[in-house]
């Protein structure tokens, strides 16, 4: 079983009362968890804020039980799924009503739309939005640093020099970080799309 040493170290620092560790923990996870929650709560920002606050508070209370056998963000997502389920139950809403982009088999055609000529049909527009969200899901699934550098470089268009300055590291280290982040992104994205292909195949066969 893998041990996530960086996350384990961060949790230890958190339990030791290290303020920088808290900042790191919050900044790495808040926005990602918020996005994780909001798509599962029908884009309800108040619900997402409340659920994420509950999740992070619960995680802080239970931090001593984290064994680093999964990534810290994966652990937070597991807590978040249950909080969302409880939240929806309390609101009289049900999980089945929430359609998640990464759980949706038909997303494959939306991914294909990237290489298709642009059209103005509502269906094509929806597919492009969903495909964009899938990329965002993949970015959020990466370690926070990887997701951030990829977004800064390729989505927001910052230069390597600018990113290096932002991270307070050298240009070569930034290039190396980008290369590793791209490989990790390819792995995650491929896993996501393969999973959806299998799901779609299963639906066709059944």
């Amino acid at each position, binding site marked *: 079983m893998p041990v996530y040493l960086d996350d384990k170290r961060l949790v230890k620092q*958190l*339990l*030791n*009362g290290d303020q920088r560790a*808290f900042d790191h923990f*919050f900044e790495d996870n*808040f*926005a990602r968890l*918020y*996005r994780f929650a909001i798509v599962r709560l029908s884009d309800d*920002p108040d619900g*997402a*804020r409340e659920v*994420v*606050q509950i999740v*992070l*508070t619960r995680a*802080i*209370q*239970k*931090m*001593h*039980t984290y*064994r680093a056998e999964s990534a810290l963000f994966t652990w937070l997502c*597991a*807590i978040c*799924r*249950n*909080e969302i389920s*409880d939240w929806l139950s309390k609101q009289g809403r049900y999980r089945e009503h929430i359609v998640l982009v990464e759980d949706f088999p038909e997303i*494959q055609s939306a*991914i*294909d739309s*990237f*290489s298709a000529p642009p059209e103005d049909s509502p269906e094509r527009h929806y597919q492009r939005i969903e495909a*964009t969200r899938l*990329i*965002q899901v993949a*970015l*959020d699934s990466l370690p926070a640093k990887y*997701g951030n550098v*990829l*977004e800064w*470089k*390729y*989505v*927001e268009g910052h230069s390597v020099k600018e990113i290096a300055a932002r991270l307070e590291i050298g240009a070569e280290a930034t290039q190396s970080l980008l290369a590793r982040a*791209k490989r990790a*992104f*390819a792995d995650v*994205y*491929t896993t996501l*799309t*393969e999973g959806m*292909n299998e799901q779609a195949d299963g639906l066709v066969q059944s």
Partner: protein
Amino acid sequence: MNNLSDELVVHGDDAIEALLEKAAPRPLPPGNDEMAVRTAVHAEWRAVTRRVKTRRYVKHFAIAATVLLGIAVSFNALQVRNAPGVQVATISKSYGSIYLLGEQSEQQEMADLVTISAGQVILTGKDAGIGIDWGNGGSLRIDKNTRIEFTSPDSVFLQSGRIYFDSQVTGLTAAITGSEFVIETEHGSVEHLGTQYMTAVNARDLTISVREGQVEVDGVYINRAVAVAGQQLRISGGARPILVDFNVHGEAWRWIEATSPVINADGHTVAEFLTAIGREIGLEVHYESPAAEEMAQDGVLKGNIDIGPREELALRMSGEDLAYRIDGGAIYVSVDTGSRP
């Protein structure tokens, strides 16, 4: 293109970059929300770290005190291995192989272990059991093949195996409903309110069986779940807790009787003794006639006996003009018309 992942493989970096360039920035939560959540979570974090520091302070203080004690003991040519911290409990009964886990994770057999201190980890062998008088009140039993860390005067960390906690030490004293005792596990925290309950942990599940009172579980992945007397609660990862009816007596509970504490029967009536025994083995007491109940209330017992609860029941009742039988979930007590003239 049928599958974008194929393109990622074929074209490598260029495909990834092209894909990312087509994406929009990930949406950010509203700034006010971030500030509000950060403030709330930060406050909780400060509270948690304060508690951790307090525990560490107590532990370090205890270790320092222990070092001094160790020096004093060594002057007396005694050997104390694995110097203990704050004493949290006393072993009242034990049998089989008991091991104390050392700092280097080495196991030391502790046949003569009498007291347990904060910070110690104890393992029981396949033929072992321990009965413990908890320092803050209550009786803790540890089953075979169990690994447990005594983390503080009010908590343990059950790593694996099975334990039983009774907040009322002997059944003849008042229940300690105010005492704090928390069983931490990898699946969540188990707290009680004046009760008897059994907690079992393995890699997949946390199972709590409640004989009396109420137990709350604050799971790592779930919100609070509650079980009351006659219920069993099972938690497996992030799945919904399963709550089922569960007998408060029977084979599942028999192991705790091997380490039952001595019942302080001296000077108490037969009726009080029967209630205590019934509580210890999970049975109700029913009198089959008003005369039997009256005799039990009038009879006063002398002395204490260090044997198992069922053996003590048989022994004590043989000296009274009362007969008993165990049937289902009850002890039925009647006037013994046959044994005496």
